[in-house]
């Protein structure tokens, strides 16, 4: 492989990884507090993509209004998801909670299928995101540059909320010890709602960028990115926000580079992430940034 091609793939990998990173944060935050894989998290990508598209199509909103509105709407749906499907099961066995999450995920996908139809819709990319920059043989769509930058900004904002505000302190406390936090007089329902709001909004931002990157959207578009982002969260050490970001970037690079280096295996691309997951769980179940298990 030529050096140019390698750099090109490297850039592609970072761009894809930044999208995984944004989704992975939502998984890791919810897991940190509720100890739950929010299976429906990936479907929020789909919700955001459709919301943004319909904002532009039906209401003729410009993208800089439609996108934030879609992100807010998705955040609200994230809170609703918790209230409807997870809150009644706080005291239930974990297996019930997981089954509920799977049910919620299928419900969202199939509701979208019934309401919108299964035919993939073209996502109209605003013109300012369609340029391609050519530097010395490298073809770089501006989107590929924007998505890591947006991710970086959002992550910095999130880190500020989590580490510098009172609500963030309460979130960290809840992920350390749920019961003790409740005893300290902290309203956990509000903290959980905030967690879902933040996680879902980040997933929404990722979903919109995903839709611009692969501009064919359908009701099941969130499933595979969702699963892979979860793997990224495990890779980085579940419960750790910086780990999730790192895991996302690593997974994106890993996927792109393995296909670039071994083009014969391109068909198996979707299997690599899961093999990576098995490898991580076998050799370092706590992930890169995770703390050692306390049994």
């Amino acid at each position, binding site marked *: 492989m030529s050096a140019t091609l390698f750099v090109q793939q490297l850039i592609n990998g970072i761009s894809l990884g930044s999208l995984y990173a944004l989704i992975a944060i939502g998984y890791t935050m919810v*897991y940190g507090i509720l*100890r*739950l*894989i929010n299976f429906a998290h990936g479907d929020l990508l789909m919700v955001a993509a459709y919301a943004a598209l319909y904002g532009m199509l039906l209401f003729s909103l410009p993208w800089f209004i439609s996108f934030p509105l879609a992100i807010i709407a998705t955040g609200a749906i994230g809170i609703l998801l918790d209230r409807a*499907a997870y809150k*009644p*099961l706080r005291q*239930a066995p*974990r*297996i*019930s909670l*997981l*089954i*509920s999450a*799977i*049910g*919620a995920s*299928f*419900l969202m996908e*199939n*509701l979208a*299928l*019934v309401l919108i139809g*299964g035919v993939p819709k073209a996502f109209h990319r605003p013109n300012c995101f369609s340029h391609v920059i050519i530097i010395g043989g490298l073809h770089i769509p501006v989107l590929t540059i924007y998505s890591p930058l947006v991710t970086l900004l959002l992550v910095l904002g999130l880190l500020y909320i989590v580490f510098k505000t009172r609500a963030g302190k309460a979130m960290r406390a809840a992920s350390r010890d749920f019961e003790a936090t409740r005893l300290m007089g902290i309203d956990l329902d509000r903290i959980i709602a905030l967690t879902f709001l933040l996680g879902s909004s980040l997933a929404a931002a990722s979903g919109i960028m995903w839709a611009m990157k692969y501009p064919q959207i359908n009701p099941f578009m969130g499933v595979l990115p969702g*699963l892979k982002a*979860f*793997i990224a969260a*495990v890779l980085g050490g579940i419960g750790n926000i910086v780990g999730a970001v790192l895991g996302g970037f690593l997974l994106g690079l890993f996927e792109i580079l393995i296909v670039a280096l071994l083009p014969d295996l391109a*068909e*198996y691309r*979707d*299997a690599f*992430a*899961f*093999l990576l*997951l*098995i490898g991580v*769980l*076998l050799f370092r*179940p706590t992930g890169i940034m995770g703390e050692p298990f306390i049994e």
Partner: protein
Amino acid sequence: MGNSFYLPRPKAAANPAGGPTAGLKRWLNAALFFLLFGVLFLFSHYGSGYQVRILNNIAIFITLAVSYNLINGVCGLLHLGPNGFIAIGAYTSALLAMSPAEKNLNFILSNVIWPLNVIQVPFAVSLIAAGAMAALFAFLISFPVLRVRGDYLAIVTLGFGEVVRVVCNGAQSVTNGPLGIKGLYPHTNLWWSWGVAALSVVVIQRLINSNYGLAMKAIREDETAARAMGVDPFRRLMLGFLISAFFSGIAGGLLAHLITTISPGLFTFLLTFNLLIMIVVGGLGSTTGAILGAALFAWGGEALRVVEQPMQIGPLTIPGIPGMRMVIFSLVLLLVILFARKGIMGRRELSWDFLFSKLAGSRRAKTPS
């Protein structure tokens, strides 16, 4: 597994007042089998093709649900990869039972690899091979899978199912890729499907009632305590995993020879989701619950076709809504898990003891002494 004597054998169920004796229960079981035999005989001779198809579906779902329940309900592990085992069984059975000439017709893009291009075995052998192949894969993945619990186990098994599907898509010279395998001989009839269903119910029920089953339930309730009592979780769970995969594989073979066309798209996570609905609605941990859930699902799936077809009510035509069935199924799963977590049966079994005690209870209620 020589150290299986540390658990007391389950005592014969205490005979509740008015309960059936062991001899009577044996007769009742025989009568039940005879009844099933009669019903199948009637349907195989006089039933319509549609009815036979539904009955076959029910039997295959029963096999799948009962073996899935062994892991999810009895062992308490949220296993999300049975679609992988079903796919392995279906492809194994299909490739072995098909004649080499037919295989050559199917494989257009690339030739089928040796030795699949020369062998053909009887259907029964192909089914056993399907089960064995699924069990072999279960053995291989049990090492990473059974090291983890809870959500991690769920996502690893889900990943396994996905990997199997992706490999089925990619491995052209074994599975014919996305084109799938067409024109299988419809070997599966009522005797095959219900015979396998009955066998799987009997084997798995006996396993659940044995020392091994007790150990599995102990692990489900409290793994640390079970370990302290000398139970080796890895070996017990592995046994459950293998037996579950074995029957899932056989059911996959039956499924392949029922619908006569298989492709990777058939074995997505949706299949697992459907099985999950069956065992949750029936009651996680109950074999008879799984049977009820499977029958309800097969029947309900057909009954709900109404919502996807246009309806004529007087002068009004209500258009059918394609895809509505899955919305209803997802809602049912959510509502059951939120409001009736135990499902129909909970962890109880619809046994003769249970039925007799209910009968005795209602009789007592009617005639107060």
